[in-house]
């Protein structure tokens, strides 16, 4: 350095040299920096796109896309967009597990949206446990999935309604009906797998809690996707129950209603079908019996708010059909993820999980316009839940009696203590 040269002075020559070096380094030396900033957030979604419940899986995918498209159109997370990678599990748990593993290991997905029924959700849950990937259980309502601490994992969140919540509200509603109509002899008919067993046991528990005179005179456990319910229906006819509870769903429920109707089953007994009030079932059954009692799954008139009606209409306008129970749950999942991404400004699974615990989001599906991800067991609360009776045309359930979340939470706590989950 000459003595006339000023050591820290930025000369034009030095500026150009440094700028060229930096540019060269950016292009040649650090390509990963610019690529990472533009990298999409890949979300893997195993769901059921074929078979008897394909309509639900398809609605799950549609609802997620409805929300994700809005997020991406608004610029994503600082330019990073969400890319959904959707795969068909065909409703088979082993396939759901295989596909999930592949989505993470081969397709580079950082997050899993498990849009399976409970049978598949437990399989995906084990994959999430093994790989440590952030996982949202979108549709599984089996309570133990998040309630049982032995099953629960810190990286999995349930964004679906929960069986025990439905059972408390259903039990309370059914008990009130039973008291009013003197329905003492009850029977149950539910699918023979985790969700069916779990939910039915809980419903019966709360029915008896609210109406101790109720007596279960028989049970029927048809297989999941069973085509013919004749022997089940005639068994129910023999038992002559005054009321019948079922958590059959989708095509199984519509088949059951079609086959039961020709035996005049629903004229002889009060039918409480928790999964009836979903457009998939309501619109498919050609001769829908009047007066079936059902929990709300998704109907755009409950909660009776402009936001819910607008969401139902927007979905229908885009996809040409009504949303389903799986659809609102899927939209809720996407909104929780989007909120967590915005809050953390990151797609890191651990940071997102931390942000999700206790998070409250605005939602058209919430009782008070919000839904909360309860921190302690990583499951949602505050969603709209209620029961009513069907009519054969829109709005299908004109009056829904809303469940009381204060009561739900109190009884759920007792239920957890009894099951040694706490």
């Amino acid at each position, binding site marked *: 350095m000459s003595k006339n040269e000023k050591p820290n002075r930025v000369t034009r020559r030095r500026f150009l040299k440094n700028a060229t070096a930096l540019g060269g380094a950016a292009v040649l030396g650090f390509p990963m920096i610019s690529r990472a900033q533009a990298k999409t957030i890949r979300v893997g979604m195993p769901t059921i796109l074929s078979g008897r419940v*394909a309509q639900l899986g398809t609605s799950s995918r549609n609802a997620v896309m409805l929300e994700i498209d809005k997020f991406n159109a608004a610029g994503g997370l600082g330019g990073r967009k969400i890319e959904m990678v959707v795969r068909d599990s065909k409703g088979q748990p082993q396939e759901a597990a295989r596909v999930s593993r592949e989505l993470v290991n081969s397709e580079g997905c950082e997050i899993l949206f498990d849009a399976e029924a409970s049978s598949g959700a437990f399989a995906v849950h084990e994959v999430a446990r093994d790989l440590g990937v952030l996982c949202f259980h979108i549709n599984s309502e089996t309570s133990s999935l998040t309630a049982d601490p032995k099953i629960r994992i810190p990286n999995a969140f349930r964004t679906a309604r929960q069986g025990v919540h439905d059972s408390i509200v259903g039990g309370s509603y059914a008990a009130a009906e039973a008291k009013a109509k003197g329905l003492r002899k009850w029977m149950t008919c539910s699918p023979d797998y985790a969700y069916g067993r779990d939910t039915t046991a809980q419903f019966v528990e709360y029915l008896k809690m609210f109406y101790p005179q109720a007596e279960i005179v028989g049970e029927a456990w048809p297989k999941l996707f069973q*085509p013919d319910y004749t*022997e089940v229906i*005639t068994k129910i006819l023999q038992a002559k129950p005054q009321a019948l509870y079922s958590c059959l769903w989708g095509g199984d429920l519509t088949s059951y209603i*079609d086959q039961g109707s020709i035996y005049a089953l629903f004229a002889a007994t009060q039918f409480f079908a928790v999964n009836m009030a979903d457009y998939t079932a309501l619109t498919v059954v050609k001769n829908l019996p009047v007066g079936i009692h059902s929990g709300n799954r998704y109907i755009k008139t409950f909660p009776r708010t402009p936001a819910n009606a607008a969401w139902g209409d927007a979905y229908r306008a885009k996809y040409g059909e009504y949303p389903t129970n799986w659809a609102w749950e899927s939209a809720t999942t996407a909104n929780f993820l989007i909120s967590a991404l915005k809050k953390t400004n990151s797609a890191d699974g651990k940071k997102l999980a931390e942000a999700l615990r206790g998070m409250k989001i605005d939602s058209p599906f919430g009782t008070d316009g919000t839904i909360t991800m309860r921190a302690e067991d990583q499951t949602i609360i505050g969603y709209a839940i209620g029961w009513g009776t069907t009519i054969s045309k829109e709005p299908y359930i004109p009056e829904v009696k809303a469940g009381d979340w204060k009561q739900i939470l109190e009884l759920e706590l007792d239920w957890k203590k009894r099951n040694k989950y706490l």
Partner: protein
Amino acid sequence: MDPTALAECLKTTSCVVTQVTSGLIIGMLLFLVAAGLTLIFGVLKVVNFTHGSFYMLGAYLALSVYKISDSFTLAVVCAGAGVALFGLVFERLFMSRVYGSNVLMQLLVCYAFILMMDDAVKLIWGAEFKSMGMPTAFQKPPILLAGGVVPAFYLFLIAIALAIGAVLWLVITRTRLGKIVRAAAHNPVMTSALGINTGMIYAAVFAAGGMLAGLAGGLAAPVRSMAPGMGVSILIESFIVTVIGGMGSIGGALAGSLLIGLIRSFGSIGFPLFTEGIMFLFMAMVLVIKPSGLFGKDI
């Protein structure tokens, strides 16, 4: 298990009537599918694994025709005819090429078609489940028979299935065509040497088997929800029926179907959690005592 409930049921006329008719209903629909399966096996000596898909195709065809025409009769006829035509083309173009091959090759061809037909149904009718609904003529209260409950539609189904079974039996045992079919099944080389086109006989039998599956699909459509892949469960039950009755025996298929129907019907009362287990147990017992099935001989 609840053997007391079963004993109570057997003491009550109304319960026996309801459960017997329930068994007949389950059995008769199974018989239509299993009869086609066993007919094809009896003559062609191939196990048509696509038979469940034929049943599915029949149900969907019936749904489409019913939607257009509002006629259940036309829907069932078109289901039977449509699947018969499909079976004919399928046999001529594909199955006829693997008659001499080993079972693995036949299984491969059939399985490929099961997957293709499921996808085709998804493309044409959609992936969501569908329901035809009960035709207006059958939207009636069930009939009370000795205290038992029997839906009018199911009485119609039993009658139709019995009529189809009787026609099939008459054609095979009392007509010249039946004699030719039996001859082709017994000794195709000799039959061919007598100047009879056995290829055409095979194609006709395959089409007839397809027609039976299509008719079963069409007849069941008002009480079964339809979805791609719906043929798998009925295929499994049909196999149980054909194994119990004896592969290739139409009478065996009828007996097997009725036995399975009754096992399921009364089993659901006495052994509700083991009904399917009893079916397989019964099949195993039959195979141990009489490995060729109850009526196990060629038609």
